């Protein structure tokens, strides 16, 4: 009898343990077992309703505007029938004690149930203009002068479809906000002046030293008449020595020399000096230098003695099939968004420079505009010399996209953009969409 009583006690204890354990074994609500991702659904709903900026317009419309009822209809039409919603628009004001003031709220239910989720979406007024002020290159240090070769007495090559002057104007429009001063070099005489270290404008910001010089003539480079003798290598009947002197000047003044397309420094151009000479393709006013021009430039930049070297060094798709399609570097793609310049991400390189120039001439790539190909070719990059001077070379096929040049310079100097109206009042509204499921499982 005693054992039966003991056993009854044990039974009571065990069942008691089961009951107590069951009370503490918390199971989720049926809706939470297999939930719809309401946050994502809300976000995609807001994004879709704003795909043509309708949501932004409604958020800034008067409370009695018919667009609010259209928005309510659109919400009811979009969301699954078992979803209830509450959409509230807040004015994101900067002043006052309350940061967010309710503008309007629409809903299809009195209560949002036991659990809900929200997504938020910031919309901007179509009347607001968000400005940004670029940091000026050289504002806190040396440089800040941009020279664009816009020489009326020289012709261009591999800029087919454009003239050097139109490219110069486009480049001016793209880059002048980023430099202390942007100067159009109107003729080869002015170019000769800056090669001698003389300023050509009255701007107090002009500084020949540390300047950026963009050659908009493509594969040709303007040559001042004064260099007709000193830039001529009579032994080899070549103007490669002029390119050598350009390289020396680049190092002397710590310039950044910019070649926008093709084989850099392949021709020299001066319509006064070479009125009867053409480049073999019917463009008069220029003389072919060939591959020796770039080699001589590097020799000058690297402070070597001048040696005539006509060796062709660039590569194209026959050298490496990978050059047939080259891509913007991740840094350049990122800067496309930052600076709002969007050239095509895919280009064709026919004059890519070899990686071997880096060790040969003490160069370092500080910024890749286009991705390196097979660790051997550089279709577009910003090179800095170990001493002084830099080169931005885009070895792409004609016709040039001048936006790439602008992007390349911005990648190289990375000026910051300071947004000026982020704190403006009344230009942003916050839309909050709260969703909840109705019905059980």
């Amino acid at each position, binding site marked *: 009898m005693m054992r*039966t009583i003991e056993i009854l006690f*044990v039974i009571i204890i065990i069942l008691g343990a*089961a009951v107590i354990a069951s009370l503490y074994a918390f199971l989720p609500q049926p809706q939470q077992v297999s939930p719809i991702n309401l946050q*994502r659904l809300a976000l995609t709903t807001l994004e879709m309703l704003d*795909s043509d900026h309708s949501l932004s317009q409604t958020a800034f419309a008067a409370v009695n505007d018919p667009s609010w009822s*259209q928005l309510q209809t659109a919400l*009811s039409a979009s969301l699954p029938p078992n979803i209830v919603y509450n959409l509230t628009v807040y004015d994101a004001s900067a002043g006052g004690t309350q940061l967010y003031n309710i503008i309007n709220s629409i809903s299809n239910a009195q209560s949002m149930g036991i659990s809900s989720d929200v997504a938020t979406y910031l919309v901007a007024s179509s009347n607001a203009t968000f400005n940004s002020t670029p940091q000026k290159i050289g504002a806190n240090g040396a440089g800040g002068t941009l020279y664009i070769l816009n020489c009326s007495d020289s012709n261009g090559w591999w800029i087919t479809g454009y003239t050097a002057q139109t490219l110069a104007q486009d480049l001016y429009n793209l880059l002048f906000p980023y430099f202390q001063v942007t100067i159009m070099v109107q003729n080869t005489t002015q170019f000769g002046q800056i090669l001698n270290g003389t300023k050509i404008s009255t701007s107090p910001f002009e500084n020949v030293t540390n300047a950026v010089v963009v050659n908009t003539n493509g594969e040709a480079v303007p040559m001042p008449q004064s260099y007709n003798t000193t830039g001529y290598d009579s032994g080899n009947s070549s103007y490669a020595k002029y390119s050598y002197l350009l390289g020396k000047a680049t190092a002397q003044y710590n310039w950044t020399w910019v070649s926008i397309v093709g084989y850099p420094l392949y021709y020299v151009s001066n319509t006064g000096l070479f009125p009867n000479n053409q480049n073999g393709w019917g463009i008069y006013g220029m003389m072919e230098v060939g591959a020796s021009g770039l080699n001589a430039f590097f020799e000058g930049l690297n402070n070597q003695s001048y040696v005539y070297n006509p060796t062709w060094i660039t590569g194209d798709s026959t050298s490496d099939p990978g050059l047939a*399609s080259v891509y913007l570097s991740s840094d350049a793609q990122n800067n496309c968004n930052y600076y709002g310049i969007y050239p*095509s991400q895919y280009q064709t390189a026919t004059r890519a420079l070899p990686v071997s120039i880096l060790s040969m001439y003490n160069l370092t790539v500080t910024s890749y505009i286009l991705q390196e190909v097979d660790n051997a070719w550089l279709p577009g990059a910003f090179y800095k010399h170990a001493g002084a001077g830099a080169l931005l070379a885009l070895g792409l096929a004609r016709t040039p996209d001048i936006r790439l040049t602008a992007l390349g310079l911005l990648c190289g100097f990375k000026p910051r953009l300071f947004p000026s109206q982020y704190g403006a009042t009344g230009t942003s509204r916050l839309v909050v969409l709260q969703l909840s499921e109705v019905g059980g499982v």
Partner: protein
Amino acid sequence: MAGATIDHIFAIIVFLATLLLFVGLFNQTIQTAILYQSHRNLATECSDLLDSMLLNPGTPLDSATTTFWGMTNCTPTTFGLQDPEFVQYELSPFSLMRLDYSSASPLYYNMTNMYYSNLTVGPGKSLLVPFNEVVNYSTAAQLLGVNGTYGFSLTLNPIMTVSLSPSSFNPLSLTVNVTGNGYPIADANVSYCLINVTGQATYPSYAITSGTGLTNSQGQAFLSFPGFNAAQNSYAVVAYVSSSGLYGTGNYEHNLYNNNYPVPLIADFGNGSLLFANSADVYGGTSPAIAYNATFVLLAQDFNLRELPLTNVTGNISPGTYSNVVIPTNNTGILVVTYEKDQNDSGIVLMPWGVSSLSFPVVFGPNPLAQNWVTTDTRLVTVSSVSYQAKLALWSLQGYQVVS
């Protein structure tokens, strides 16, 4: 002594029975908890899988060099449906065209000796893609990494339902009904075009009349075409509707003759080439030769319909022959093929170039109805500006370990 033993035995039996009951109770609780966790895990997996489909364009990706898998014939190496030129939940209408829709049985065309994935939403409205160019369910499951572990069914349905019905034939009047989830959508902008077959020559010609309208409080817009006798003409009306960020499309065709007609079959996604087959070779039926005239209309950025010229747009198709035409654009639109057997027997066939242009629905994957437990998740997406609801149904293929 015997009484004590019986007492002892009775006590042990009762104790063991209680212990079993206790274990059973705990087992039930633990089993339920594990099932709940499995279902919740499935819901999380469903949300992740849906996002990975909708927020990833897949590879090959390079649309500039026409190697984007949605616009070529290649098999993707990673699966995704996002439009590579956009961000967020904007899907490629061409990637969706390359999916093998499971809802219809395939069609065989003996002239090419190939089977075609068959998405037909009505007479003369079909999208037929050769099987060697579609991405089937098992390939997609493998690329998504769920082959053998989860089954899924992806459904995309247009949010707006735009239906057109004639209210009078001479002159033609049409009523456009615009709804979403059953709600009438008032004050919606309607942009429409009437394509009228005017077959009086060797090949049928056509005339396009465009216009705009607005829906009333019942979500209805009334389109009228004075002087157009619908009873004596073949025609199609395509309408695009927009309201508060939602976009939808609908269409209506009227054919005087549809015993046989040209059937557009996709030949090559890469270059946009199509075949026009005689319907007798595809669906059977009578087999006279038919003359056709094709054009392409696309939805411009201002949501008006624009005509895009094609080359080799006229011809004759006898049974046992077919013609070729190339759509020279990567924009979505509608291929409109007018046809005639003779001057009194004409008709019109529509084919979407990009599923969104005719609001074709998409169902990709097996039917989930027979599965033990199915979880779903939903996103709202746009496909070439047309609003769709994307729903993924997901289920486990490995069973639930706590139940046999």
